[in-house]
C-alpha cells in the first residue's frame, strides 16, 4: 500500500514543482519584458528630447511616479489574492489630511505621522473585515470605503486645502534627497525590495499566491485564507496612508481632491506589470515598473511638446503597444 502510493505522491509533487517553476519563470519573464518596454520608451523619448536623460529629470520623474508605485505594492498583493482595493486614493488623501490637521493642532511630527498611518490601518482593516467576515465582494467593499473616505475629506475641509506650518524635519520625507535621489524614491526602492522578498521567500508570500491561485485548494491544504486577505487589505491601507503622508510632506498642502482617481493609475500599474485581475499572478517589482512606464510616458509627452489635447490618447496607445509586445513575447517563451 505504502509502496504504491509513495511514488505516485512523489510524481505529483515533482509535477507540482515544475509547474510552479514554469509559472515563476513566466512571471520573471514578464517583469523583464515590461522593463524592456520601459527602456525602449525611455530611449525613444531621449531621442526626441535632450532634456529627458538628465539626472534632474529622471529623478523628478521617479519622484512623480513614486507615490503610484508605492501604492501599487499594496495593490498587487491584494490583486494576487483575487481581490481589488478601490479605496487607495481616498485613503491616501484622507491620511494626508489627517496628518495636516494634526500639524494644524500643534502636535509633534511623530504623532502626526502615526495618526496618518492609523487612517490606513483602520480603513485597510475595515476593508479586510468586510471582504472576509461580512463576505462582500472586494469591489463593493472598497468602493464603499472609497466614498466614505472622500466624503469625510469634503466634510472636514469644505473643499479648502489645509496648509499648516510644519517643522523642517517633516519636509525631508517628501522634499529631501539622499545623495541625488529624492527621499520618496528611496522609500519606493526600499519597499519594493522588502515586499519582493516577502512575496517570494516567505511562507506569507507563498500563501498570498496560493489564496489567489485556488482558494479552496489553499484552504484545504491549511492556508488560513481569510487571515491572509485581512492582512493584504490592511497592508494596502497602511501603504496608501504612507503615500498620503509623503504626498503631504512634498506639497505641504492637503488638497481635498488629493488622490482622486488614483486607484485607476495604481491598478493599471499592477496590471501593466503583469498582475492578473483573476488572482494568483503578479509581482511587486512588475507593478513598480508598470508605474514607472506610465510615469515616463506622462513626462515624455510634455517634454516632447506634444499637443496637450492629444496627450491622453498617446499615453493610452503607448501602454497598449508596450503591454501587447510583452504579452505576445511571454506567450511565445511560455509555449
Amino acid at each position, binding site marked *: 500500500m505504502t509502496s504504491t502510493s509513495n511514488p505516485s505522491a512523489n510524481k505529483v509533487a515533482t509535477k507540482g514543482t515544475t509547474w510552479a517553476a514554469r509559472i515563476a519563470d513566466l512571471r520573471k519573464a514578464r517583469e523583464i519584458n515590461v522593463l524592456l518596454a520601459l527602456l525602449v520608451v525611455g530611449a525613444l523619448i531621449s531621442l526626441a528630447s535632450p532634456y529627458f536623460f538628465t539626472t534632474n529629470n529622471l529623478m*523628478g520623474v521617479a519622484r512623480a511616479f513614486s507615490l503610484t508605485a508605492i501604492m501599487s505594492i499594496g495593490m498587487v498583493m491584494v490583486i494576487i489574492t483575487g481581490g481589488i482595493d478601490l479605496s487607495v486614493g481616498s485613503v491616501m488623501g484622507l491620511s494626508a489630511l489627517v496628518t495636516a490637521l494634526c500639524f494644524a493642532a500643534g502636535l509633534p511630527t511623530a504623532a502626526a505621522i502615526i495618526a496618518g498611518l492609523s487612517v490606513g490601518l483602520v480603513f485597510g482593516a475595515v476593508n479586510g473585515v468586510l471582504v472576509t467576515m461580512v463576505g462582500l465582494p472586494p469591489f463593493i467593499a472598497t468602493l464603499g470605503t472609497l466614498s466614505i473616505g472622500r466624503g469625510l475629506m469634503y466634510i472636514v475641509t*469644505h*473643499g479648502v486645502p489645509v496648509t499648516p506650518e510644519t517643522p523642517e524635519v517633516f519636509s525631508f520625507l517628501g522634499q529631501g534627497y539622499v545623495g541625488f535621489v529624492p527621499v520618496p524614491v528611496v522609500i519606493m526602492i526600499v519597499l519594493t525590495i522588502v515586499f519582493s522578498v516577502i512575496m517570494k521567500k516567505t511562507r506569507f508570500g507563498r500563501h498570498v499566491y496560493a489564496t489567489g491561485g485556488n482558494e479552496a485548494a489553499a484552504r484545504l491544504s491549511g492556508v488560513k485564507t481569510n487571515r491572509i486577505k485581512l492582512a493584504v487589505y490592511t497592508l494596502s491601507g497602511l501603504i496608501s496612508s504612507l503615500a498620503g503622508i509623503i504626498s503631504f510632506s512634498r*506639497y505641504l498642502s492637503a*488638497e481635498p481632491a488629493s488622490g482622486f482617481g488614483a486607484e485607476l493609475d495604481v491598478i493599471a500599474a499592477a496590471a501593466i506589470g503583469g498582475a492578473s485581475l483573476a488572482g494568483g499572478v503578479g509581482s511587486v517589482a512588475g507593478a513598480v515598473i508598470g508605474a514607472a512606464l506610465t510615469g515616463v510616458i506622462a513626462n515624455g509627452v510634455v517634454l516632447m511638446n506634444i499637443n496637450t489635447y492629444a496627450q491622453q490618447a498617446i499615453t493610452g496607445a503607448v501602454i497598449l503597444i508596450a503591454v501587447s509586445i510583452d504579452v505576445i513575447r511571454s506567450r511565445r517563451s511560455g509555449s
Partner: protein
Amino acid sequence: MRAFKFTLKALAMTTVMFIAGSAAAKDIVIAVVPKVAVPFFDDCNTGAAKAAEQLGVQYQWVVPQNTQGSTQVKIVEDLISKHVDGIAISVNEPKSVEGVIKQPMDAGIKVLTFDSDSANSGRSLYIGTINAAAGTTMGESMAKAVGGKGKVAIVTGQLGASNLNERIDGIKKALAAYPDIELVAVEGTEDDLAKAVSVTEALLRANPDLAGIFGVSQVGGPAVAKVLATKEFGDRKGVVKVFAFDDLPDTIKGVKEGFISGIMVQRPVTMGKLAVEQLVGQINGTITETKDIDTGVTVVNSENLGNYTK
C-alpha cells in the same frame, strides 16, 4: 355632485395658495451649483448665502462630487423634481447641460449661469468674469513683465472647461500684438496640484529659456511657486515671470515671496450675491430684462496685496 364638491375644494385651495404665494418669500427656494468643491466656490457660497438671508429666501448649496458633465446634469434633474424656484450653476461642460437647462426654463424655474457659462443653453443670464477680457488683461500684464519678448507657456486645468479656454483665447489675443513673444506650450493638469507640479517641472526642463508662465486655473499659481521654491529651479525664481488666477493662500504667499508677479483676482463673493439677487428678482417679477453681468478682475501684486475687494 361629487365632482362639484371637488372643484370647489380645489378652488378654495388654489385661492389660499395664491394669497400665500407671493407674500411668503420663505417659500422661494434657490439652489446654487458650483463646479466642484474648491475654495473659489466657498467665496461664491458666502456671497450667495448672505444674499439669501437678506432676501429671506431658502438657499441650497449643492456640490458635485466630480467634474464630469453628467454629474451636474443629474443634479439639475434632481433639483427640477424637487421643484426649486431658481437655479444658479457654474457649468463644468457647457454642451452637456444645455438640454437640462432648457427643461426647468420651460417649467417656469429660473436658471442662470455664474463663473462658467453655457451660452447656448437658454439660461436667463451669465454672471461672472468675462474670461476673454480677463485673459487679455493677463496677457498684457505678462507682455509688460517680460519686456515684450521671449518664450511663454500656459498651465491650465481641465481641458474642456470653457472659462479656462476663453482666458487662453484672451491671452493669445493680447500676445498677438507682440511678435517677439512665442507661446511654446499649453498644458492641462486636471486641476490636480500633483499633476500641475510635474507638468511645470517638465516645462521648465524642456524650455531652459522660458520667460513666463500663465497659470490660468487656480492650481497653476501654487504649483509654479512650489516648483520655483525647490533647489533645482531656485535660480529661475524672478527670471520666469508668473501670472496666476485666484487668490488662494498659497498663491498670495507666492506673491509675497516673489515667485508670482501678479494674480488675476475674480470677485466670487459678488458673483454669488448677484446670482441669488437676480434669481429672486426674476421669480418675484421685479427683474424682467436680463443682461450678462461682468464682475471683472483685479490685478493683485506686491503693492496692493493688503487691500482689494472681492
